């Protein structure tokens, strides 16, 4: 039997040398392209213009809160140009660069859940629910830096008591505003959005827990959580949720953003505690910002120095377990 074989490859099928060599250049091209893409991705941040949205307004009739710390207040421009607000980018300078056009009017905060009188508050109403106080708090970030800030607001318990919690309410959960159109960088922040936070009800009712509408004598700048945020001075900064649209009283411990992202590193309580290390950095000391390059770190205080006011909330609790 004759088998007719046709050679399936002839000389003309040989890959031209130029093409073959091209494979090496392809690798180079890949490198160059990825570098170009990386550079391009940074462009919008670089060229985002200055603020054109709402700018902070002076707040009149603010009373001085007697419990303020007497430590040196960190400079306003420093504080408002170095912070975390991942919806506007993950670099410390990003929020100030990118939040300028954030629209915060009109603004409604819904207070709901396990309450007798659920209610939606306009921003105007929130500004008038109680006398506004200026409270100078220490603010400690989980990353190991701290600042001293004159916030303006009143105790969260004012608004919680107004809606009359039911006996079944044991926790309070907060939700931030999130609009991917206004916050395009939120999609690559690496955390689930909208941002959510929570407190136990007794923590939320502690007078130190501040519903905050301003800082440095003015309404909040966009990058610091305009128009209304929480400030919880005895907890790490990420507990102090920004740009709140919903406050809900609930029966069970609610999920919180950083705990969802990495439960091993960020607990529900996240009280400032120099004796409980974060897995990636010691919490024994902190860098008080504004002191310049050679200022040494200072010891971190239990509950960020608010032990007298809040320690009783945690009587009998193992704070290593409930970090």
């Amino acid at each position, binding site marked *: 039997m004759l088998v007719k074989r046709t050679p399936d490859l002839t000389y003309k099928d040989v890959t031209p040398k130029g093409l073959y060599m091209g494979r*090496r*250049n392809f*690798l*180079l091209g*890949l*490198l160059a392209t*990825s*570098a170009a893409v*990386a550079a391009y991705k940074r462009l919008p941040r670089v060229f985002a213009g200055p603020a054109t949205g709402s700018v902070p307004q002076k707040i009149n009739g603010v009373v001085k809160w007697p419990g303020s710390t007497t430590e040196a207040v*960190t400079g306003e421009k*420093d*504080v408002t*140009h*170095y912070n975390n607000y*991942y919806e506007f980018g*993950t670099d*410390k*300078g990003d929020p100030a660069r990118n939040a300028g056009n954030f629209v915060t009017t009109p603004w409604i905060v819904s207070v709901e859940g396990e309450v007798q009188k659920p209610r939606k508050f306009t921003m105007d109403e929130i500004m008038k629910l109680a006398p506004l106080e200026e409270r100078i708090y220490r603010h400690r970030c989980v*990353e190991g*830096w701290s600042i001293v800030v004159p916030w303006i607001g009143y105790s969260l318990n004012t608004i919680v008591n107004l809606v009359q919690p039911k006996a079944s309410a044991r926790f309070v959960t907060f939700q931030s505003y999130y609009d991917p159109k206004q916050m395009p960088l939120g999609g*690559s*922040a*690496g*955390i689930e959005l909208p941002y959510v936070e929570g407190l136990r009800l007794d923590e939320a009712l502690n007078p130190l827990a501040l519903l905050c509408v301003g800082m440095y004598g003015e309404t909040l700048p966009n990058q610091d959580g305009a128009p209304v945020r929480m400030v919880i001075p005895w907890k790490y900064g990420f507990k102090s949720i920004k740009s709140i649209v919903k406050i809900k009283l609930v029966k069970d411990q609610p999920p919180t953003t950083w705990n969802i*992202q*990495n439960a091993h590193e960020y607990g529900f309580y996240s009280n400032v505690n120099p004796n409980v*290390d974060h*897995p*990636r*950095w*010691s919490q*024994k*000391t902190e*860098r008080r*910002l*504004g002191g*310049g*390059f*050679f200022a*040494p*770190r200072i010891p971190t205080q239990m509950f960020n120095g608010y032990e007298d006011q809040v320690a009783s909330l945690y009587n009998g609790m193992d704070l290593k377990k409930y970090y």
Partner: protein
Amino acid sequence: MVPKFLNSIITSKWTKVPVFALCLVPLGILLWRGFHNDLGLNPVEFVEHATGDWILRFLVITLAITPLRKILHLPQLIRFRRMMGLFAFFYACLHFSTWLGVDRSFNWHDVLDDVAKRPFITVGFTGFVLMIPLAITSTAGWIRRLGGKRWQLLHRAIYLSGTAGVIHYYWLVKSDVRKPLEYAFVVGVLLAWRLWSWFTDRRKPSTVRVRQEEPTTAETM
């Protein structure tokens, strides 16, 4: 294939001076900003991040020299490899001493605690320590003393340093891992190229196995 003038620039004995000066620009910018109080609210973090970035960039440049020599047929690029590696080490020294002396104020108890207990510091410290013998043995005398083969084997430790640097960065960031992944991608490509060329070299007939970079002086290493 490669323009002649490019080759003559690379081989000119005058090129090393401007390249050296260029490598000092990042330090110059840091000093300039430092003296003008322009390092932001957290200057220690700023300096740590800037020097850290430049370590990784110089490690990438160092690791890119061998592939570029082969792909672009520019063997003389080897003249710059030692300088690039030493600049990676130079910025690593700045990075490490800023952390040790300024960030931690030579608080040895805290420092040892950090190195032992924080994985991101452990891996970064390891990457730095591995660079020390490479910097010491970067001279022609040491190549002679060790012999080319052993010297080359030792200096492969830069693969570990580069990998450690990327992991250090990846473990440092809280959630936005894009920048560390960019470095991981580039370092990964550069290391994968070596694996690939080692593999294809082995499969070639032995007659064409010419090793252009057979070590004779520090320059050719």
